[in-house]
């Protein structure tokens, strides 16, 4: 937790970390004997699943939960499924996890190899969705969104993380190849890449626009990039994709290049692991590696009531178990000591105005919160700009009364969606 600066005429100026000048290679975590794979589809206990406990899987094989499922997880190892169960995430979202016990045979599946000669959007989407970096390929195939701009993120959007910047600085060749593949595959009109403002830009490949992003948080957030560099004002309640723009992590681009080069999906995710004292370790771990494996390698202790943060300190989420796996989009993992956890309170808003000052989207948070606290979600959206929020978390960060504002806001948005679906189903 960061203390406020003594003098504070303007709002806080939180700066995103920069990658060190001569970055070390990541340390590789050995593939663990048991991997945990998350699948974003709820498990229905009344139905028989397609994949069952005891089934054997090959390396690179896709795991579908049901026959008509479109979501899949990819097993990074060959082995046996030892467990399938439900996983509850934020706001009660239900996902499913598989545990795969690795065998020594390491048999590859050749599903992707058969189609890897001709990069093509459809086949890529059906095999490579869970590559490290989680390429949003389905966005291009979705007839509802007409993507005309692809922004590749070479900058990390949250504080503390340097994973993407590291990859940007060290994988130039793959990035160029990946961009070529993407251009050919998607036919998207405009490709841009974000780089830290002080990066040397020898990346300006043919026809790729380079956006220099300020270090100041939250300038690297997708909506801010849209506004500052694409001159598209984000429409409240709409996603970037609704407005024709999609964002892709630089790691996804690199993974695509590698996958097509070696005709096999890749599974190694790069991430920044931050210890309680702030020491960083850059790590390469196979997707599905439980976090405790990584902590063990660096002898990082976790105690009761510490917080394990997956993602950055402003927008990440807290994991409740050390078996939480490295996912395709896990860029940062940090351990926060229990004594460093700032408390939240149930105090009312004292109208100090700090949240209003700090909000990059001009949301009247001081008024909004009164409606959210009273569960008046529709009023909150209609009159107090709930949907304009770009989810940066700064309001909570500064709140004098320590109200969990950001949580209220996300809950409010979540409830609005529920209300809408209810109305549609009625």
């Amino acid at each position: 937790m960061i203390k406020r600066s003594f003098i504070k005429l303007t709002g806080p100026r939180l700066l995103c970390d920069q990658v060190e000048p001569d970055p070390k290679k990541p340390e590789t975590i050995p593939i663990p004997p048991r991997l945990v794979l998350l699948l974003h589809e709820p498990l229905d206990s009344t139905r028989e699943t397609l994949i069952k406990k005891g089934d054997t899987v090959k390396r690179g094989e896709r795991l579908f939960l049901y026959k008509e499922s479109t979501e899949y997880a990819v097993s990074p190892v060959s082995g046996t499924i030892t467990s399938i169960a439900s996983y509850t995430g934020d706001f009660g979202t239900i996902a499913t996890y598989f545990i795969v016990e690795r065998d020594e045979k390491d048999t590859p599946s050749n599903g992707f190899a058969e189609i890897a000669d001709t990069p093509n959007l459809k086949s890529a989407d059906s095999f490579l969705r869970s590559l490290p970096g989680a390429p949003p390929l389905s966005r291009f195939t979705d007839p509802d969104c007409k993507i005309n701009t692809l922004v590749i993120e070479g900058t990390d959007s949250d504080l503390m993380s340097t994973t993407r910047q590291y990859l940007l600085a060290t994988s130039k060749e793959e990035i160029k190849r990946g961009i070529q593949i993407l251009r050919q595959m998607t036919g998207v009109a405009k490709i841009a890449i974000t780089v830290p403002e002080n990066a040397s830009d020898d990346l300006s490949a043919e026809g790729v626009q380079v956006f220099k992003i300020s270090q100041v948080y939250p300038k690297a957030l997708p909506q801010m990039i849209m506004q500052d560099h694409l001159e598209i004002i984000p429409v409240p309640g709409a996603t970037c994709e609704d407005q024709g723009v999609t964002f892709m992590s630089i790691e996804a681009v690199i993974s695509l290049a590698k996958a097509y080069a070696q005709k096999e999906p890749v599974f190694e995710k790069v991430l920044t692991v931050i210890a309680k004292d702030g020491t960083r370790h850059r790590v390469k771990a196979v997707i599905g590696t439980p976090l405790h494996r990584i902590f063990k390698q660096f002898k990082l202790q976790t105690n009761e009531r510490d917080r394990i943060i997956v993602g950055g300190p402003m927008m990440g989420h807290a994991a409740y178990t050390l078996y939480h796996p490295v996912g395709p989009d896990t860029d940062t993992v940090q351990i926060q000591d229990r004594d460093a956890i700032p408390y939240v309170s149930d105090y009312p808003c004292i109208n100090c105005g700090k949240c209003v000052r700090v909000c990059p989207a001009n949301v009247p948070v001081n008024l909004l919160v009164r409606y959210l606290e009273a569960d008046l979600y529709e009023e909150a959206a209609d009159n107090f700009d709930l949907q304009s929020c770009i989810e940066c978390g700064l309001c909570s960060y500064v709140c004098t009364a320590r109200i969990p504002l950001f949580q209220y806001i996300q809950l409010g948005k979540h409830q609005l969606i529920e209300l809408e679906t209810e109305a549609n189903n009625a």
Partner: protein
Amino acid sequence: MHKQNKYTVSHAPFWHDGDTVTTLNQNIILAALPAAIFGILKFGAPALGVLALAVSTAMLWELAFNFISKREITIADYDSAAIGLLVGMMLPATAPWWIVLIGTLIAVVMGKMIYGGIGGNPFNPAVVGISVLLVSWNAIFDFDAALLNYEFGFTALAPLGALKHQGVAAMDLFQIKELAMGNQVGSIGTVFGAGIILGGIYLILRGYIRWEISLSYVAGILITAFLFRLVNPDLYASPLFHLFTGYTLLGAFFLAPENSSSPVNLTAMIIYGAMGGVMTILIRNVGSYADGTVFAILLINLINPLIDRIRPQALGKGVNNA
């Protein structure tokens, strides 16, 4: 499998800038201390007595209200302490104990607690307390009579009172420098203008009050007084005289920017502050009260909800590029 710890699971963000309501109020009290201590040195033990009584009773009223309404005890946030201190600072050192008691009772209970406590009050609680006293026991605030028994080494006349009764001619008796350094007759915590400014600047620099309000308030005072003087210098006092007398500076840095009763958006803050300054001078120059600060502040508190609707458009509102 090894034993699983229980981890703290909560929502992002996981950091905080460290501010709390308590630190906010502690800083406000700290910033008010130079002026308050000056008052104690100047007016002696009675001043200390009034301030101590004001702070303690303010906290006790809140505690009592917490008990009666069966709510959580909230005095640890120092909010009532700050209110009590400000009430005390606006009283003369000779104020009788029951005036202090009534002042803080009205300030804390009627000014704040009945609206649901901190954050709910539409008016500045300390100002509510003082204005009720002003209307009901105006004689207490006759600083000349109140401080009759004091021996001062300077003009022992309350400047604003003198202005009201003797006109601008009386102004020759006062030098701005003397006024700023606290060589004037007045309430405990408002005579030392330089000290209040010091505290105000501290709060502004540390981001505990909204500087837009304070500065526009001061600007409102100076510009309005200047205009009056432009029209008739024989009738109206100079801008700096107004700035350094009465509750003006306390109003600008401690009363008008009170969080709950003031706006948070830029345009609104500027209108609010400037109107406070303008109204103060209008009441002084045209109205019947010698010092209009507290009434001016009640007035801007009243319009605050209206003007705070003037706010910048939220991201994506009012644009049509979908």
